[in-house]
């Protein structure tokens, strides 16, 4: 049975599944650490997925697609910011509203432009190439090292590298930069930040901006790299899984990324497990395997995996009170 599971391909799959969640989770981290609940990750991913696929198809250039995705996701994030920060509305409701609205709108627009049942046409060659590291061919025959260098470290698309490079970058920004200090203050005690002369509103808007940019890559990765097209509701809960990774990682970049990799691992195992006969149980039906990430989420949220503490001021609109 173990041979059937192909450990090697699971490792590679994990690396290729994780970026969707990493981008979204890092986006959510910025928003939530500044004090704004980000339930709209799902909607931003969908919007960015559609727009990047559509633009990539029309221009036959994946990078234009990525850029378009950034623009749309950022616009949505700023709308979300307006609702949460300036209008001081209920952030949970606002997030769900955006998710539902985008679920409908992306389908309608895809149908309008392409008449293919709410999806965009196949990108074919207009996708990002897998980057081959120099010297891959030379070491290809060496056992393990060849595989490690050629398929684990090398051979992924640029966005994969971006996702993993983001992790230490986000960590540095959050903990070692002025922006990060002010961001964290706004999420823990916005009154203290305000008293210190920091504009809480501006900082939170900046955080939403960053979240919009980062989240867009999740969508463009899904559409351009993983599938080659946009399909209705293709995010399938990734936005919520990313939020769970945040809870799992206690809103800290390194641990959150670990959570994302964990979910990526489960996805990879899931695909391998279809069609595999487990001793005593037989074949597990695909629909039950599909459940696994969501069940894991509930387990994490039940506090059975980690005790987590959210930023203290999260979800509460900032009102100067004296």
């Amino acid at each position, binding site marked *: 049975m173990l041979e059937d599971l192909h450990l090697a391909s699971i490792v590679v799959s994990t690396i290729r599944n994780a970026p969707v969640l990493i981008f979204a989770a890092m986006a959510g981290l910025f928003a939530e650490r500044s004090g704004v609940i980000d*339930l709209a990750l799902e909607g931003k991913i969908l919007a960015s997925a559609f727009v990047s696929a559509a633009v990539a198809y029309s221009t036959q250039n994946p990078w234009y697609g990525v850029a378009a995705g950034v623009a749309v996701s950022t616009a949505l994030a700023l709308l979300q910011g307006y*609702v*949460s920060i300036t*209008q*001081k*509305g*209920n*952030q*949970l*409701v*606002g997030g*769900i*509203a*955006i*998710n*539902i*609205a*985008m*679920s*409908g*709108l992306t*389908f*309608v627009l895809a*149908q*309008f432009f392409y008449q293919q049942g*709410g999806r965009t046409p196949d990108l074919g060659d207009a996708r990002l190439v897998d980057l081959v590291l120099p010297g891959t061919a030379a070491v290809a025959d060496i056992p393990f090292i060849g595989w490690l260098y050629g398929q684990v470290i090398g051979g992924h698309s640029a966005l994969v590298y971006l996702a993993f490079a983001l992790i230490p970058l986000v960590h540095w920004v959050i903990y070692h930069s002025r922006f990060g200090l002010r961001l964290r203050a706004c999420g823990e005690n916005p009154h203290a930040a305000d008293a210190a002369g920091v504009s809480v509103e501006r900082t939170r808007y900046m955080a939403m901006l960053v979240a919009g940019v980062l989240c867009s890559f999740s969508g463009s990765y899904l559409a351009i790299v993983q599938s080659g097209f946009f399909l*209705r509701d293709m995010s399938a*809960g990734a936005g*919520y899984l990313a*939020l*769970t990774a945040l*809870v799992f990682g206690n809103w800290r970049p390194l641990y959150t990324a670990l959570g994302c990799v964990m979910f990526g691992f489960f996805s990879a195992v899931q695909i391998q497990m279809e069609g595999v006969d487990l001793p005593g149980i037989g074949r597990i*039906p695909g*629909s*039950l395997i*599909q*459940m696994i990430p*969501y*069940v894991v*989420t*509930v387990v994490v*949220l*039940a*506090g059975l995996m980690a005790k987590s503490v959210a930023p203290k001021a999260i979800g509460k609109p900032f009102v100067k009170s004296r």
Partner: protein
Amino acid sequence: MKTTELPRWATAFALPILNLLSALLVAALVIYLLGESPVESLGILVNSAVINPEGLSYTLFYASTFIFTGLSVSIAMKAGLFNIGSEGQLYIGGLGLTMAMLALDKVLPAWLLIPAAMIGSALFGALWAWLPGYLQARRGSHIVVTTIMFNFIAASLMNFVIVKYLIPEGQQNPASRVFADAGAMPRLNAWFPVLGDTPLNVSFLLAIVALVVYGVMVWRSAWGYQLRATGLNQHAAHYAGVSISRMIIVAMLISGALAGLGAVNSIMGSTHYLSLNFPAGAGFVGIAIALMGRQHPVGIFLSAVLFGALIQGGFDLSLEKPNIPQETFIFIQGLIILFCGAMENFYAPAILKLINLRKG
């Protein structure tokens, strides 16, 4: 003296109507950009959903399910809980209903079978809401994310159950067998022939009864008082002797049961079998209804009818105008949730200014 607080008529009527109009305005803009006339589309919609008696019947038929899901979300909201899981609770409620039917529909007469199926749907819906409620009450797990997860889990689970256990021999359709006639909810067209061959049934009357019971329980009983206190201020509710964890769990159980009861209309009023994905988004519509109707029985009723009209009219509209598929109404739903829920006070400063200007 300047007014600083909005009067009741403004918060109860003016704001909700302005919010709704804003959502519809954005929708109209999108429809225009899609190359269609918003006015013409509105005309088709109103004609199909309200003016045509058979269309109206369909509108009220859809509204029957929406009233239940709207009540489900509303009662949880009153306790301060944002239950996004009505979709999954409705779906699993359908399973409970089905199990009662499959076991008893050859044995019991209608007047026993229908209540038995209703109990099954309510029970299973409540069950599906229990764990998220328990986790929120006892472990502080955020109910929004857990209920969303339970929606996904329900979809996978039901897929498995239907495909593996319920499809009758030789059939391809992912659905259970058809239930016995005794399990059909009596249709209202028996009393009102003008309704034509439409599925509007007694569930509509049950929904209205549910609205009344909800209104009385939440605003006139001591339990409802404690429910609202919990939703407004948990610290104070604890001071007042409310058992917070019990209240959260009970509110979720009732919420789940109400969502589950929505299946009675969808299944026993219409298809008479359990099919894959029968909820078709009714649970999420419940969220929009609860926000638009401000969790008030009359508001919920009106909002449910409005959405019923949107679905019925939207269906006919999508047939005439392929550029406006039914998914457009999911987009409109999102807009309504945005304007009526997250931006509910957007127009408040303008209204205040207007009031103070008129005061001179």
